[in-house]
């Protein structure tokens, strides 16, 4: 057996480890690998540091490869070790803690260091960079003690740091030497729009300011500028840039310019020593963005694995970023010169901006703000360098990605793409990896490619490209896309199931599962409730609801809690109650020793911790309708006081809310439905985050749809404005029925409208005739419902299920 060669990687960061990952895929057996990392962590995603500060991610979540990964791949890892010497004659490296390792090949991936301005006072306590986990920890600690922070640098890094500090509750001033922010990624117009947005979020800016010194005694207390002015701050974050970390390479005698000089195969001037990532300089450029670093890593991995590669030819980079929730994009040369021509659209109302820069009929640069969906297309034109003469305005106004994807031009672009080019940016999957999965690993569907390479597994944005690659490489063997059914029991989609049920008039879940060839004869906890809903929706009068196909809460008409007790929420229409009802609730709560009584977010009263066997007794004593706080049905209609008492109220919001709740209570819907009615545009009932929200205006009502205040907050879309209460009832009925008939089970209105588009819903409701027909069908569905609590209380056969079995008699054998 041939002995393995020894590979040593200096630097446990994204670029170096990326190259190793790639190498392990190409040639898992050829090297014994040793990695040295100066930070005491496994390989983590540095780009996500700002999310950790902004509270979006946990430190643990940003780890790319955990400790186990190193073990599984037999990698020797030394963390907390800084390499102090490379001996190129003996081919060994030595760490500061005395560990020595021999190499046949050595990768230097020492990354970069933050550039610290050599200001007087820069050595004071409270002056830090924004580069690693330790900096983040310092910032978090500082935010607990101090109030004011100053960030030097209005570039991407500085703004990310500022956003994090703002989120930690600090007051933040951002100091920038140039007249506008992010001047390396944005032009002035886009930058001004960004600034406005960030100011609205609470960030403060000091532009055209050059820092002269840092004031304070032991700890920094602020900055003094060259113009004599000052700003206070107990934490100073320097985020003015990065510089390649080349100290070790220089010491070793490797050729160094700004970064470590490498050729197209990432080789340095010394044999068997390679450099990759932010520390490397290729054709005069040291990159700081992740995509080029991944491309370099891929080339290096191939070279080390002995796989043929054309080498790295440099990257044309684009920047696609989310800065404090705002999407920005830029690529190429976007600052205009006398030789270029530019086309622009600026929409201050919508908060979007688009500029394309042309030279000699070719697209050479672009800036997008607010909406970056055209970024990928524009970038591909910039890279291909093809003539866009005559189509400039088309490019500015944009055409859809679908059109591009379908045209033959789309695939020819894919064919021309280099193997190392990243297709899936989320998971860093290159074209070559996907091609390999298709040609050598038998992947013939997007699903199997996703399972094998992770491509398209995160945001899904690259799915059209993956499909395109399938067409190119799979040829005839391209598989039927494996359809993802509504659950593991079937490959059929919601629409197909509903169509088949209607076509064959299937009348029970059992029949549906038998006839449509379910894998599991009795389905699962996902499909059975879904089928039960679809059948009830299609045949409101004939279908007998299957209690056993309902989820626990809907079967027992109460919310199961973690300890097996339940909660009881009686209906309080519009959140308007009475002393009598309140007394009754209080008495029942006392009598049954209910451990907790709480107001819900929907203006109702919740009795929590009720034993299951007490449920029917409590319902009986309450003698109030079920509040349906447990089901996929109308939950509550929240209201504000409206013109009954409020001096701002324009309409009777309580009355309107009660009317809606009485009309729609007990309605079965695909997912829970929440309504609200506000009496004026101040919107105290928060109607604009509800499934259907009504906001009174002088002389009418605004009708809003598809809002959500839960997992993913979504403000409503305005459906229309109507004049009378009758119209409110007509539109709300029609909307709810249209939702019932078209959404997937368990799909909230917000997700549904996002999926099908607002226009589709508007179109479905646009004709009065259709609305009235929808309302008719809704009323038919409602007409067969009864109050479930009352039904259980009165029916022994149902009531028995709430009791524990009493008998447990030993049998004499």
């Amino acid at each position: 057996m041939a002995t393995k060669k020894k590979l040593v990687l200096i630097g446990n960061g994204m670029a170096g480890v990326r190259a190793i990952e790639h190498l392990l895929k190409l040639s898992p057996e050829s090297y014994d690998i040793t990695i040295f990392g100066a930070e005491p962590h496994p390989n983590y995603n540095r780009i996500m540091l700002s999310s950790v500060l902004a509270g979006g991610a946990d430190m643990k979540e940003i780890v790319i490869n955990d400790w186990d990964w190193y073990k599984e791949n037999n990698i020797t890892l030394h963390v907390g070790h800084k390499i102090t010497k490379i001996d190129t004659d003996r081919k060994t490296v030595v760490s500061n803690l005395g560990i020595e390792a021999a190499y046949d090949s050595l990768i230097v991936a020492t990354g970069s260091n933050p550039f610290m301005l050599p200001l007087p006072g820069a050595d004071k306590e409270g002056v830090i960079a924004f580069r690693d986990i330790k900096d983040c920890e310092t910032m978090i600690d500082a935010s607990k003690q101090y109030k004011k922070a100053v960030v030097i640098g209005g570039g991407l890094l500085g703004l990310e740091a500022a956003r994090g500090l703002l989120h930690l509750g600090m007051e933040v001033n951002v100091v920038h030497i140039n007249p506008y922010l992010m001047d390396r990624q944005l032009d002035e117009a886009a930058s001004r729009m960004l600034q406005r947005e960030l100011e609205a979020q609470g960030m403060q800016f000091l532009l055209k300011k050059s820092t002269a010194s840092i004031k304070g005694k032991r700890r920094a207390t602020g900055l003094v500028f060259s113009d004599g002015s000052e700003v206070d701050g107990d934490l100073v974050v320097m985020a003015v840039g990065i510089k390649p970390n080349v100290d070790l390479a220089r010491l070793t005698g490797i050729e160094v310019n700004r970064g470590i000089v490498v050729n197209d195969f990432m080789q340095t001037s010394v044999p068997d020593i390679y450099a990759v990532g932010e520390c490397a300089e290729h054709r005069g450029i040291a990159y700081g963005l992740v995509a080029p670093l991944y491309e370099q890593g891929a080339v290096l991995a191939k070279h080390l694995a002995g796989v043929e590669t054309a080498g790295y030819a440099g990257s044309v980079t684009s920047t696609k970023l989310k800065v404090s929730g705002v999407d920005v994009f830029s690529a190429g040369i976007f600052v205009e010169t006398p030789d270029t021509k530019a086309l622009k659209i600026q929409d201050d109302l919508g908060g979007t901006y688009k500029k394309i820069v042309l030279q000699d009929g070719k697209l050479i640069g672009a800036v997008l703000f607010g909406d970056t969906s055209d970024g990928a297309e524009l970038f591909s034109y910039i890279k291909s360098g093809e003539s866009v003469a005559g189509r400039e305005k088309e490019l500015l106004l944009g055409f859809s990605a679908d059109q591009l994807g379908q045209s033959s031009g789309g695939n020819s672009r894919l064919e021309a793409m280099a193997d190392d080019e990243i297709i899936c940016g989320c998971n860093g999957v290159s074209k070559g990896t996907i091609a390999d999965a298709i040609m050598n690993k038998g992947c013939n569907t997007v699903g199997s490619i996703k399972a094998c390479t992770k491509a398209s597994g995160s945001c899904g944005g690259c799915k059209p490209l993956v499909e395109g690659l399938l067409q190119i490489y799979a040829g005839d063997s391209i598989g039927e896309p494996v359809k993802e059914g509504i659950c593991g029991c079937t490959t059929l989609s919601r629409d197909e199931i509903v169509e088949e049920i209607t076509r064959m008039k299937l009348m029970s879940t059992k029949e549906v599962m038998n006839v449509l060839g379910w894998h599991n004869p009795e389905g699962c906890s996902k499909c059975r409730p879904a089928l039960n809903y679809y059948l009830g929706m299609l045949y409101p009068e004939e279908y007998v609801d299957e209690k056993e196909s309902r989820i626990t809460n809907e079967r027992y008409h109460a919310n199961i809690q973690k300890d097996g007790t339940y909660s009881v929420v009686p209906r309080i229409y519009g959140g308007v109650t009475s002393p009598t009802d309140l007394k009754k609730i209080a008495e029942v709560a006392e009598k049954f020793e209910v451990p907790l009584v709480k107001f819900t977010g929907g203006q109702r009263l919740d009795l929590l911790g009720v034993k299951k066997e007490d449920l029917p007794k409590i319902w009986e004593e309450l003698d109030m309708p079920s509040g349906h706080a447990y089901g996929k049905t109308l939950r509550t209609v929240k209201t504000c006081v409206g013109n009954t008492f409020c001096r701002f109220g324009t309409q009777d919001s309580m009355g309107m809310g009660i009317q809606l709740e009485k009309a729609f209570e007990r309605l079965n819907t695909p997912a829970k439905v929440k309504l609200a009615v506000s009496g004026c545009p101040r919107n105290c009932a928060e109607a604009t985050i509800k499934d259907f929200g009504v906001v009174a205006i002088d002389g009418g009502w605004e009708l809003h749809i598809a809002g959500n205040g839960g997992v993913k907050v979504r403000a409503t879309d305005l459906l229309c404005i109507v004049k009378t209460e009758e119209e409110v009832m007509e539109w709300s009925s029609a909307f709810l029925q249209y939702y019932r008939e078209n959404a997937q089970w368990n799909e909230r209105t917000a997700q549904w409208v996002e999926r099908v588009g607002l226009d589709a819903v508007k179109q479905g409701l646009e004709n009065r005739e259709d609305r009235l027909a929808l309302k008719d069908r809704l009323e038919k569905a409602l007409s067969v419902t009864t109050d479930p609590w009352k039904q259980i209380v009165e029916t022994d056969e149902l009531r028995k299920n709430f009791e524990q079995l009493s008998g447990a008699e030993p049998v004499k054998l």
Partner: protein
Amino acid sequence: MTTKLLVANLSDIDVKGSRKVKINDTEIAVFRLTDGSVLAVENKCPHKGGQLSEGMVCGTAVHCPLHDWKIDLRSGRVHEPDDGCVTTFETEVDSESGSIYVTI
């Protein structure tokens, strides 16, 4: 030593339903499946202790009401991708009287 106990009659339990019974300190969930068979397991999901008697019955499995773990009622084993096991108890149904016996 094992004891055989008369716990219920078939008519006490709905098809695809369950009732619970407490024997000494152990709570047992008794299930009636579509094929008429009766199975009994300890009423405690190995995940977070959810009451399996409240879950949805599909074939010979029950889905825990708390986090949807799927447990095979015959073997007591938790289905993949989760892992674990609940205690099962021997059951017997008198086909004439409908009496259900559980042996502990």
